[in-house]
């Protein structure tokens, strides 16, 4: 508590004086570890790139500690991190912990208790870091007693993006009105989403444009599609926590709801959207969906927030700069009420943190690095580059406010409605459970199984995993 008070006191100083004072502190604190190289692994996302290319360089300049952040694909990131921690080989000093895998890591005791380590080594505590400035997202990385095991580095919500230019086109408006009998607008219900999708698919074809009605993150060989279903589509139809009960049953017969009516409605809607989605959708993970939208190939769609900023602003990679609209995704009737009451959620609050594996051989230097990225003052540029916000104070920064304008109020949306979204459920068997569902998601997307059969199979497979692993009684 004492260090927090000091931090609060310090933060009342003027910014420039603070920065200078900080530089001194980092130099001194880093001196014993100068020349150390710390190695990390993370998913190759805009926030990760910023950490590796900007923050790491700044940190090295100050402290002499070299941070090597390996940004790789999502699968590889897991594969490498888990193997390293399992083998205790000490290759990585810090690993990316996605919000949904943290319970697995804690369950297997992979991670260093950051709170405790800092308590034990007060000389490493960076006075300017205000842990209270973290948004509630940090709670996902705490254990029962409130100790932190991962330093949040990104958090965002999955939003509904639409093309303002297409939705605003006069001929589109009149054509839509004529065909459907109500005015064209971004979707606030799934029926409207469907109509929009169908309409723009036809509209684009008529005009000879390479675009379609909606994105679908429907890779038929990659877990991204299962995640899309469980974390975004499902919840917005009222399927929460994978439809798994407290005693770990997912089939309707056992009290679960993974093959319940809501789940089936969600999967039916989602797979029916493929008809109006660009052909690459069956090979799309989150990054391809973002690319599809940036290439102007879809009129609307669910897109991960981390990509919102570059899609809206980076003219080198995006052809829809200036035409990106952001909204909260639609929900089925009743879901919003449940979410507001805390009984459900409307979509995925995604993000991750950096944690230190027990096997790390440079824990002290890594603790400094993690605190460096936890400073409130490095957050704004990071938010602009990666559309991620982990600190309350970041919302008020003028740079972030400017980006908010360009990205059509994405940050405001996150600030105001963030509480309606939730992270993944606390399942230590997360990866195994998801892997059991994967083939059924793929089969449903490929049309090899009906949505109903696929979910019946999926819940059976998930139940078997939970039983085999000893969670079910």
């Amino acid at each position, binding site marked *: 508590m004492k260090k927090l008070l000091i931090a609060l006191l310090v933060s009342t100083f003027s910014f420039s004086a603070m920065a200078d004072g900080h530089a001194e502190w980092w130099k001194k604190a880093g001196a014993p570890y100068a020349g150390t190289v710390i*190695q990390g*692994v993370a*998913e*190759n996302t805009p926030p990760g790139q910023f950490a590796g290319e900007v923050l790491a360089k700044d940190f090295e300049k100050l402290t002499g500690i070299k941070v090597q952040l*390996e940004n*790789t*694909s*999502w*699968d*590889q990131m897991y594969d*490498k991190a888990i*193997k*390293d921690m*399992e*083998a*205790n*080989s*000490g*290759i*990585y000093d810090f690993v990316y912990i996605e919000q949904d895998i943290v319970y697995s890591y804690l369950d297997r005791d992979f991670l260093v208790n950051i709170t405790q380590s800092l308590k034990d080594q007060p000389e490493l505590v960076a006075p300017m870091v205000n842990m209270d400035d973290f948004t509630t997202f940090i709670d996902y990385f705490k254990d029962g007693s409130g100790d932190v095991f991962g330093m949040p580095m990104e958090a965002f919500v999955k939003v509904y993006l639409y093309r303002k230019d297409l939705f605003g086109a006069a001929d589109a408006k009149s054509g839509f009105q004529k065909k459907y009998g109500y005015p064209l607008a971004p979707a606030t219900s799934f029926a409207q989403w469907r109509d929009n999708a169908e309409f723009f698919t036809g509209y684009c074809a008529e005009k000879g444009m*390479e675009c379609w009605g909606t994105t679908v993150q429907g890779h038929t060989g*990659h877990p*991204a599609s299962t995640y899309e279903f469980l974390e975004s589509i499902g919840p917005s139809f009222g399927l929460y926590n994978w439809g798994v009960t407290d005693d770990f049953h997912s089939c309707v017969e056992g009290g679960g709801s993974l093959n319940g009516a809501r789940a089936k409605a969600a999967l039916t809607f989602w797979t029916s959207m493929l008809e109006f989605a660009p052909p690459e959708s069956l090979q799309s*993970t989150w*990054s*391809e969906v*973002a*690319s599809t939208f940036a*290439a102007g190939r879809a009129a609307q769609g669910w897109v991960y927030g981390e990509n919102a900023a570059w899609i809206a602003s980076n003219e080198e*990679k995006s052809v829809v700069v200036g035409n990106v609209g952001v909204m909260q995704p639609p929900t089925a009737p009743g879901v919003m009420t449940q979410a507001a009451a805390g009984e459900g959620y409307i979509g995925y609050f995604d993000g991750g943190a950096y944690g230190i594996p027990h096997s790390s051989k440079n824990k002290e230097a890594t603790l400094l690095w993690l605190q460096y990225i936890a400073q409130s003052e490095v957050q704004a540029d990071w938010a602009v580059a990666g559309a991620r916000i982990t600190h309350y104070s970041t919302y008020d920064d003028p740079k972030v406010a400017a980006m908010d304008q360009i990205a059509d109020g994405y940050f405001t949306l996150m600030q105001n409605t963030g509480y309606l979204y939730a992270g993944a459920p606390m399942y230590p068997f997360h990866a195994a459970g998801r892997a059991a569902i994967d083939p059924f998601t793929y089969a449903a997307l490929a049309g090899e199984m009906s949505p109903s059969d696929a979910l019946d199979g999926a819940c059976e497979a998930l139940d078997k995993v939970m039983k085999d692993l000893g969670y079910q009684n």
Partner: protein
Amino acid sequence: MNKVLYKTFSVVIWSLFTIITLFPIYWMILVSTRTPVQLYGKPNLYPTFLEKIHWKNYTRPFVDGVFGDYLMNSIIIATSNALLVTVLAIMATYALSRYKIAAAETIFFWTMTNRMAPPAAFMLPLFLLFTLVFKYGDSNLFDTKIGLILLYCVFNLPFAIWLLKGIFDGIPKDLDEAMIVDGANLFTIISKLIVPLAAPGIAVTALLSFLFAWNEYLLAATLTSVYARTIPTGLSEFVTTTGTEWGTMAAVAVVSMLPALIFLALVQKYIVSGLTFGAVKG
């Protein structure tokens, strides 16, 4: 007339197959030289690399990124493995060829099963052994170059021995005996007599071992993470987060293919006997 027709027919058919073989490779090279924007829209088959090459696809992974290290790892691992295999195979083959050993047949068959076994069946035990069992203090074999160098011997030694056996058997034993009479020791016999006479075969063995180690993916992917990562495993890191990185992925694939092309020129004649274990002479 009939002959001319037949010849024309052969040329047409073979031209077709040549196009089928080369077209995908040509496309990959095209992709590797283009910017993301050039790849949007209709596929353009025109050789744009004649006009402008987007070198960033190559410099980004190999100069700015970690693929330079991966490339180095691949070179070190494949070269060391080829050398080790060649030396060990010369010794082992000499023993099998010159001495009567009771279990020779069994050893032969056993080494062959090693080669035929599916690597996927060994992936898990090797991972567990490398991480949990083969360790000394804090260090283990996981993610080490030496681990892969030793491991590839399992696949390369059998085939190297098979390949060399035929050649060594073809060198008359009288020559050995003549040297023994002159007082030469074993090392001299092998280095002064056997190696020079079998030089072409030994070179082929080394090159094919190199190629195998260079191309191996599954076990390298399972048993490495950062410090011993090879080019093929790096390539697979593009499996998902491609997004707009097709150009980079193609560039990495082109570079991983280069040694294969060089070797093709050198060992083309021996590829058949190499791949069939010498059961069929190419």
